[in-house]
């Protein structure tokens, strides 16, 4: 009896099992939100009056303000993805979240540009 060829063993269409894709995406969101907080900390150093103790206080304030919503955002996004992936036809709705993070990053860039150009 001959072994079936690899082509005949392969399924006609690949199974749509997401595997660890959702987890990798959730981790990517967390990395991005951490980077956003770090970039805000750096950009905060250009604010007028940010010097010495004020710099440290400003950095702590930025971290405290941004970390809880960032954590909540990442957790709710992961849950949303997991819930949708359990349905027969997953309908991921991430467009608004992507627009928010892109808009916020672009606004941070414009803000940094303003602070650098306007003494």
């Amino acid at each position: 009896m001959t072994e079936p060829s690899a082509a005949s063993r392969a399924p006609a269409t690949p199974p749509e099992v997401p595997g660890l894709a959702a987890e990798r995406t959730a981790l990517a969101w967390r990395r991005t939100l951490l980077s956003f907080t770090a970039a805000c900390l750096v950009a905060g150093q250009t604010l007028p009056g940010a010097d010495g103790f004020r710099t440290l206080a400003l950095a702590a304030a930025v971290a405290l303000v941004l970390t809880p919503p960032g954590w909540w955002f990442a957790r709710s996004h992961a849950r949303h993805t997991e819930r949708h992936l359990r349905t027969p036809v997953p309908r991921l709705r991430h467009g608004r979240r992507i627009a928010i993070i892109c808009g916020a990053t672009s606004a941070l860039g414009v803000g940094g540009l303003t602070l650098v150009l306007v003494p």
Partner: protein
Amino acid sequence: MPAADSARTAVRADRFPRWVYRHGTEPDARFSLANERTILAWVRTSLGLIAGGTALETLDLPMEPHLRLASAVLLLLAGAAVPVLAALEWARTERAMRESRPLPGALTGLLLVCTVTTVGVLLLLALLLR
């Protein structure tokens, strides 16, 4: 038409952006998630550009000041532009996957290469002319 196909082709008026989701059928979720991770990587790249541009001016490095300022401005401009371009590319890619078309090319990479090369040259000059 099977129920699954019907569900795939249904118009998704509640999904943003509509100009992406009202076309085609649902792609494999793994591909959509990979597309999402790609744009997040672009956002992190943009944040790096912003942090670099800001740090150049904040740290007051010993360089020719005008060239240093030009480098910082270029980095910040790119940092502001990259997320917008990346979001458009994410949407174009998602739509191409939904319509089973070839994926569009990446313009954001070209912008990044040009910016980083120009900033590198400017910073080299700024160090030499200080």
